[in-house]
């Protein structure tokens, strides 16, 4: 059983601006937790706070019961938290294999070609050549390669920041299968996404952020029926 991620009263302030206010949530092993909200609600800030990119103003982050807040980003990554980025951050000048090796950097030993191929398969991009330059891949493949790179770390928690951005409906449908399969392997997934059909299909539970505050938590069906969520984010016609 992999470790659970717990955020307890996490607060982030940039000068006078409060980007996150007392946010608490839990990502359980083998479950997919959706994180939704309007632009600027604090979703990416929450990932940055969890991964140590942004220091916490208050609160605590724990992984498997051990406090990881305050640790350097590379130590948090080594502790078992992997992520993808809203704006793709592959090592574009390096090839696919080097990107996957980068993902496995914190693991003991070296990544071999068979393992790399298995990672591509898991991310739904088995057609990619290992010596292809990452920066030259089609956009959707780059998104999935970023997921494969994150999986190479064999994380306890995977944080996906708008993984379907720029994907067509077919690619998005495949992405749902990929995310569910990742969770089925025991990894806890935190999914930031605006595409509500993807959120409803992939997530077990959903947390809604607005102006840095958690305004609702529940199953996808409960969330889309929540009046506060409809008013703050979904609108009356989106569901």
């Amino acid at each position, binding site marked *: 059983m992999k470790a659970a991620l717990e955020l307890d009263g996490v607060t982030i302030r940039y000068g006078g601006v409060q980007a996150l206010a007392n946010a608490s949530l839990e990502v359980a092993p083998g479950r997919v937790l959706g994180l939704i909200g309007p632009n600027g609600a604090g979703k990416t800030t929450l990932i940055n706070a969890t*991964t140590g*990119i942004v220091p916490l103003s208050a609160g605590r982050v724990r992984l498997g019961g051990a406090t990881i807040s305050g640790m*350097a*980003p*590379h130590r948090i*990554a*080594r502790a078992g938290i*992997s*992520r993808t*980025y809203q704006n793709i*951050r*592959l*090592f*574009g*000048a*390096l090839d696919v294999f*080097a990107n996957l*090796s*980068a*993902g496995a*950097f*914190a693991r003991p030993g*070296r990544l071999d070609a068979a393992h790399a191929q298995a990672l591509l398969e898991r991310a739904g991009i088995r057609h990619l050549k290992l010596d292809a*330059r990452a920066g030259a891949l089609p956009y959707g493949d780059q998104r999935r390669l970023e997921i494969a*790179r994150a999986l190479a*770390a064999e994380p306890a928690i995977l944080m996906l920041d708008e993984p379907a951005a720029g994907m067509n409906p077919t690619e998005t449908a495949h992405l749902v299968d990929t995310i569910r399969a990742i969770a089925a392997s025991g990894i806890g997934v935190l999914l930031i996404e605006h595409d509500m059909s993807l959120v409803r299909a992939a997530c077990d539970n959903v947390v809604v952020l607005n102006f840095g505050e958690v305004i609702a938590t529940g199953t996808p069906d409960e969330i889309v029926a929540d009046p506060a969520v409809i008013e703050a984010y979904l609108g009356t016609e989106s569901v």
Partner: protein
Amino acid sequence: MNVLADFYAAHSKLIDQVGIDALLALSLSISLQAGQLALAQAAFMGVAAYISAILALDAHWSLLPAMLVAALCSTIVAGLLALPVRRLRGIFLAIATIAFGEIVRIVANNLTISGGAEGLSGIPADATTPWIYGTLVVVSIALWLFSRTKFALAIALVREDENAARGVGVDVGLVRFTTLAIGGTIAGLAGALYAHSNFFITPADFGFGRMEQILVWCVIGGITSPLGAAIGAALLTILPEAIRFLADYRDFVNGAILLVVVLFAPQGLAGIRFGKRG
């Protein structure tokens, strides 16, 4: 064989200088591979040159122990420099390290033990061609072995994207520190060999002009390729002698070559020769 012997006799000084310059290019290449424009190699070289010279002149040490102690000292100096500049990037790192180099030169210019502006003379010329190329071979093998480690991957990741590198578990600070320290070691070895093959040294040997030369070798050869950097150093050390007949136009040709490479082959000679990217 006589032809080779005659060639060596006529060009031994140039051949030795090529080996030392290749070492200097390798020393900077390490930092450039990590995306660090840390331009203190001439200073590290100077520190080691003076220490090995003083050990030879005052304590009568032979080349090997003097060279090793000098390289250790330049490594420590590089490590100490890495600490205050650890948060600097790009042009700010370049300016800070150039300033450090100038400080080292000025200190050497004013200390009695380093001979002031006149420098030190009478250094035993025991850094022969086998010593220089033996050192180059050892360093090259060490770097080749190093390139096969995970740490070499970390260096490439830091060059590509520091934040993404942190996200996969790379200790960026350690990479920056280590690359500068390794560069200090190699530059130190080159400095000691330089002192022991030139009979005398002065602070002017280790100023910004030298640093600029080393950077140009790496740019011409390929900033992410150690082999390219070494080849760039060799070519640009030989070139002025090969085009000696051009007299005053030699500097013009040097500048024109740099301009052509930067404009048409930004990956340097390594990019042309091996089709290397990144």
